[in-house]
C-alpha cells in the first residue's frame, strides 16, 4: 500500500469525489430567490398574489458568480413558478470551481421548495466533476440549500479515475461546517484498480 500511485487513488477519490461536498456548492446556483431571477419579466410580473401559478419562463438561462467568485450557469427548458417554489424541467447547472474544475449537475426535473429552501432533483441525476473524472449517478438528489443537508434515496453509482463506489443510498446531515461527513449506506462497495508494476514509486 505504500507509495503506489494507483493505490493512492484509493483515497485520492475521497479527496476528489468529496466534491460531492461540492454539491453543497451547487446549491449556490440554485439559490433561485427573488433577486436571482428577474421577476419583472413580462410573464412573471403579472402573477396574482399567492394565486396558483401557470405561467412559466421558457428556456430559462441564468448565470452569474458565486460568493467565491466562481462562474456558474443554470439553464432549464422551463421554470414554472409555484406558490412557494419553482418547478424546473431539464435543469442543467454548471459551476467552474478553482479546486475541482467544472462541476455539472443535470436531471430531468428539479423542484425548488421555497419553504424549506431545498432543491429536489429527480429522474436520472448526473453529477460530473472534472477533477478526477468523477461521475455520480442516481435517480434522486435532495439538497438543503442553506443547511447543506443532502440525501439520495436511490442507488448511488460513483465512478472516478481508477475505481468505483456503489451504495444503496447516501446522505449528509445539515450541520456544515461542523460535520461534513457524507454517509453512503447499504451494500457499500469500493473498487480501486491495482497499480501497474512499472509505475510503483
Amino acid at each position, binding site marked *: 500500500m505504500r507509495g503506489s500511485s494507483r493505490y493512492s487513488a484509493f483515497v485520492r477519490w475521497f479527496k476528489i469525489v468529496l466534491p*460531492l461536498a461540492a454539491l453543497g456548492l451547487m446549491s449556490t446556483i440554485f439559490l433561485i430567490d427573488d433577486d436571482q431571477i428577474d421577476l419583472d419579466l413580462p410573464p412573471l410580473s403579472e402573477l396574482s398574489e399567492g394565486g396558483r401559478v401557470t405561467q412559466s419562463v421558457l428556456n430559462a438561462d441564468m448565470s452569474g458568480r458565486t460568493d467565491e467568485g466562481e462562474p456558474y450557469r443554470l439553464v432549464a427548458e422551463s421554470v414554472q413558478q409555484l406558490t412557494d417554489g419553482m418547478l424546473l424541467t431539464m435543469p442543467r447547472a454548471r459551476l467552474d470551481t478553482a479546486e475541482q474544475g467544472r462541476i455539472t449537475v443535470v436531471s430531468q426535473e428539479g423542484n425548488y421548495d421555497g419553504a424549506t429552501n431545498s432543491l429536489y432533483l429527480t429522474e436520472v441525476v448526473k453529477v460530473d466533476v472534472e477533477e478526477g473524472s468523477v461521475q455520480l449517478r442516481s435517480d434522486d438528489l435532495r439538497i438543503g440549500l442553506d443547511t447543506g443537508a443532502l440525501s439520495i434515496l436511490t442507488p448511488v453509482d460513483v465512478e472516478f479515475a481508477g475505481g468505483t463506489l456503489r451504495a444503496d443510498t447516501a446522505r449528509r446531515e445539515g450541520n456544515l461546517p461542523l460535520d461534513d*461527513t*457524507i454517509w453512503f449506506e447499504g451494500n457499500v*462497495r469500493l473498487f480501486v484498480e*491495482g497499480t501497474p508494476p512499472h509505475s510503483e514509486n
Partner: protein
Amino acid sequence: QQAQPFSTFQHDPTQPLEVFSDTLGVSQAANTAVFRGSVEAVQGELTLTADEMTVTYDEATGDVVRLVATGDVFLKSLLETAEGQFADYMVAEGTLNMSGDAMLTQGNNALSSDEMRIDLNTGSGEFIGRVRTIFVPTSQ
C-alpha cells in the same frame, strides 16, 4: 515444512483493492473515510475483516497515511491468519500493529501475545509481550 511466520503477509499494490461494508462515511474536513459494519478489504491474497475501518489520508496528496481497524480484526493470507481487537497500519512505514488478544495461526500452530508487529513490505514480524505458543506435533 511450515512457512516462516508472517512470511505470507506481503502487500501487492499491483492488485486491485476492494472494500465492502454496510456504511461508509467520508469527511473532507477530517480527511477520513470510515467503513462500518462487516468491513472486508481484499487486495490480492490479503484479506482484512473488521467491525470498523478508518482510513486517514494526507490532505495535500490524498495518499493513504493510516488505516485503523477495530473489532474482531482478522488479516488473512493463504496460509496464515493474524487476529486481534485492534490493528493500526502505518502505510508509509508498511508496518501493521495488532493488539488485543493478538494471535497468529498457521495451520494447526498458533502464537499469541499482547501485541504483534508485521512488516507488510518484507513479510516479517515480531511479537511484543508474553508469547504463548501452541505447536501441534505432526503425526509420526
